[in-house]
């Protein structure tokens, strides 16, 4: 017989730009490739049959949010509202949108991660998520640098592409130690708001543990509008052990 150790069985990594919400972008289909990749990553996450999905996304402070909360776009387009449900920080709201769109109706934990949280705190937070259920699914909503070109929101920083590429590599290689080692000061300089969330991911996957994790699959890595968008899937991972 087998017994399950509480663990993250699968993680999906998606960016959290407002434009992921179709309501914000007008008639045109904006970045359909990015949207499709996010949907595919979430589908893979849900296919791993998690008992609970943790959505981790950048917020002004580390805190858990009401699981009934919904995406609130009113601060971006005043005519849009959260429809009476409690409004969430953008990244969490977009994660919820992706889950809802995928038809997920199971339990969810909405975890905001303070964007200035130190790496150790993020890793610890991630590790604590593993104990939430026998099979934890993690949707990590985080963005690369907003300085990927002269037309980027933060204009060009020549270090930005290298930084984003290092994250892409880490995800592809399952190298959680590399995510754990991301420099918060550099990330802040580069307007890479995903740093803290990626370090939560690293903690959740067991960065620094003896066992490495299998290679991830990167579904999207580009910066069509000057912001680095990364979509990836880590897992499904087997944590079954003989007893």
């Amino acid at each position, binding site marked *: 017989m087998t017994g399950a150790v509480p663990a993250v069985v699968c993680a999906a990594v998606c960016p959290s*730009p*407002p*434009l992921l919400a179709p309501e*914000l*972008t*007008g*008639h*045109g289909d*904006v970045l359909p490739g990015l949207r499709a990749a996010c949907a595919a990553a979430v589908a893979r996450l849900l296919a791993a049959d998690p008992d609970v999905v943790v959505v981790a996304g950048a917020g002004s402070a580390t805190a858990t949010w009401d699981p009934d909360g919904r995406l609130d776009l009113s601060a*971006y387009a005043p*005519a849009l509202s959260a429809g009476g449900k409690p409004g969430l920080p953008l990244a969490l709201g977009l994660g919820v949108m992706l889950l809802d769109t995928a038809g997920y109706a199971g339990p969810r934990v909405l975890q905001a991660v303070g964007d200035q949280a130190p790496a150790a705190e993020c890793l610890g937070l991630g590790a604590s998520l593993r104990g939430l259920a026998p099979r934890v699914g993690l949707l990590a909503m985080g963005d690369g640098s*907003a300085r990927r070109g002269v037309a*980027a*929101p933060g204009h060009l920083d020549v270090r930005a592409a290298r930084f984003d590429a290092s994250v892409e590599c880490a995800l592809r290689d399952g190298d959680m130690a590399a995510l754990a080692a991301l420099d918060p000061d550099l990330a802040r300089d580069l307007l890479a708001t995903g740093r803290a969330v990626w370090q939560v991911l690293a903690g959740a996957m067991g960065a620094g543990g003896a066992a490495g994790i299998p290679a991830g699959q990167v579904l999207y890595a580009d910066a069509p*509008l*000057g*912001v680095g968008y990364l979509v990836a899937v880590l897992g499904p991972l087997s944590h079954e052990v003989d007893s």
Partner: protein
Amino acid sequence: MTGATGPREPGPLVLHGRTFPPGRLLVMAIVNRTPDSFYRPGLTWDEGAALERVHQVVAEGADILDVGGVPAKPGEEVTAEEEIRRVVPFIAAVRAAYPDLVISADTWRHEVGRAACEAGADLLNDTWGGWDPELTEVAAEFGAGLVCSHAGGLPPRTRPFRVSYPDVMADVLDRVLGLADRALRAGVRPTGIVIDPAHDFGKNTWHSLEITRRLGELTATGWPVLMSASRKDFVGETLGAGIEDRLSGTLAVTAVGAWLGARIFRAHDVAQTRHALDMVAAVRGDLVPARTVRGLA
């Protein structure tokens, strides 16, 4: 029967079997089958050129085509027979080419209106304010729409001469609502009745500016309001601009009219008018922008 004089709930406009809800802003493209209209005279006198313009304005987003055969200004007489010769075969040709397009006939004469409806016209644009009462009966008979306009009581093809009103907007309201009421009583479809203050018709520039400023009083009646201001003299006199330089002024007036609730805009410059109206609709929250990514990446 409900009279036209009291305010009514704004409802859909139905033309050619197509339903246009109150928030929808419609461009009515001008196609003159005349050699001597005021803007670019003779541009579409040739039938081939006129059809070419139809193709163009449809591509540019026109919702309605307004075909006229007699210029508004005084000039050589155009008989009803000649007017029919100018517009009716053309309307038939447009109808054949564009089965779904709403076609309007710009005429004050019932004989022309009848022939136009038989050829496929859906709306009778009676710019001269009910000069020929029988035109209303034609609209009723064919189920066509009817534009009820204020021309200050002037006979067709005359210019205002020292025209004065104690209150021009009151006169406009009185006239167009009276015509709408008459149309209702004659059996014209309520969903086909449109009112038009008719800028410049029986008005000096001050009058036209006043009716633009107070257009909300007209739209508050609930009837769909047609605004016909394209490159007109009141724009030219206001800006000191010749006919070729009146587009920006026209678009400004168009935007004001749309903001105040007008629903149909008769225009020479279709693409630009479409853009101006789409912009107003988006500001109003009635139109979703084409593509928005600024600040959202």
